[in-house]
């Protein structure tokens, strides 16, 4: 299937990536090639086939409802690009 520049830009919007016109054009071409090869899947007869969502046959892997100590706040915040003494800080989000 052909991928247009507009499609690439729409998807980039969803994925929060900025692209220049030139990048979008190039990616449209490249993604078109990759999608072509993903389109091979449409040749398959998949009628009645159950999808595999997990590579292992495991189910009901749970933990008990037990409290564990949390991490010290300094360690939680240590990698924050912008933070104050207690919180991460982001540009003002308007609701």
């Amino acid at each position, binding site marked *: 299937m052909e991928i247009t520049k507009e499609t690439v830009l729409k998807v980039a919007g*969803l994925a*929060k990536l900025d692209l220049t016109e030139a990048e979008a054009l190039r990616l449209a071409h490249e993604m078109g090639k990759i999608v072509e090869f993903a389109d091979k899947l449409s040749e398959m007869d998949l009628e009645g086939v159950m999808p595999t*969502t*997990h590579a*292992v046959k*495991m*189910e*009901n*892997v*749970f*933990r*008990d*409802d*037990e*409290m*564990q*100590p*949390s*991490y010290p*706040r300094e360690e*939680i*915040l240590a990698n924050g690009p*912008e933070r*104050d003494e*207690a*919180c*991460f*800080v*982001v*540009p*003002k*989000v308007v*609701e």
Partner: protein
Amino acid sequence: MSDYKAVIGLEVHAELDTASKIYCGCTTAFGGEENTHVCPVCLGLPGALPLLNEKVVEFCIKAGLALNCKINNYSRQDRKHYFYPDLPKSFQTSQLDLPICYDGYLDIEVNGQTKRIGITRIHIEEDAGKLIHGLTGTRVDYNRGATGLIEIVSEPDLSSPEEVYAYMETLRQVLLYTGVSNCKMEEGSLRCDVNVSIHKEGEPFGVRTEMKNINSLSAAKAATAYEIKRQKQVLEEGGSLFQATLRWDDAKGINYVMRVKEHADEYYYFPEPDIMPIVISPEKVEAIRATLPELPKARQQRYKEQYGLSDYDANILTVSKALSDLFDQAVAECQGPAKACANFIMGDITRLLNEEALQPEEVPFGGKELAELANLASQGAISSSAASKVVEMLFQPEFAGKGPKAIVEEQNLGQVSDQGAIKAMCQQVIDANPKIVEDYRGGKKQAISALVGQVMKASKGKANPAMANQLLEELLGS
């Protein structure tokens, strides 16, 4: 022009009352210093993996059974993607097409009419963190992040603000009874999104707007009423509605548009590979069903049939499971009528809870004490005013561990029913109040209550008022 009908559906989020979060061992305790209930898993650090808390699954099943749902034998979690600073992984681990519960209902009562509201589904998911908006920036606190939630999605079966209120109230009661959530709306443990559209009978559904994160029953009602009115006004003025997400401002009593939806949300869901499928056996469902408490409706019925309580009393008593439990325990030990126990709960106990700003769960004594008190009262061993005093003392820490009998004795609150003693007091009162006696004899029969009051005063409230009344009448020769 008021032939528009409202079509309303609710999505209710209830934070589950588990000790730890849904995928890690961090506490779910409300509040706490910012970012102190956080670890690599709930911070979404790269490489950290979720481990599903089994209690979350069990609580969801329990809520589902209480809401008459079917339980999916095979269920799983899915990732719901969107970017927001309160969502650390940029996806919310939720459920898409295989929720744990589906196809249930909740009966509500509005104006004496019962209405059945369909429950489409109940699924588990994680809560987001908290954003604290400042002047220049927004601060992010992940303490609440990844607390286990259930989302209860109703059918669009509701049609008025009153029904919205009743639905939320009844739902809250059921969740409290099952113990899956503390439902503290002021702490955000229970909140709802209200979807509203209006249309005319026989015409297709109208454009829908959604009001997000409403956190009180009255706000849900007010916001719905406002929105129905607004939509009607727009249509009546020939305008057109657009799909939008609104935010209710409770202080101002108006809805704000948060954002206009141009197209459906793109969450690009897919099955969560890091959490294994959830398989729920019929045995598991039955085991959880066996732990369900008697729900409010059933209790109300029982109170009416077994104890002859009125509709009103039965409803009031079952509003809180804690008070209803207290009633059941007291009645089991009480020799007098159940109504005596009910009156204490609906009267003095409720008043004191309000005065002391306590939750119903915090009544500092049990059914045994309440039964003892009710027995004393119904046997006439204490007056009603003395009984109120006893309840007050039972709430005081210095009387902790003492039963009503002990308090009555210690505080000398026992009612005097000694006929000789009361008779003597009555005679004194008659002698000291010739004017009132004259009135009485002159035909003002109600004047006797003033004399009874004087006897009570003289006895420091301990005389049995009924006996005093009778003796006074005798002495006055009527």
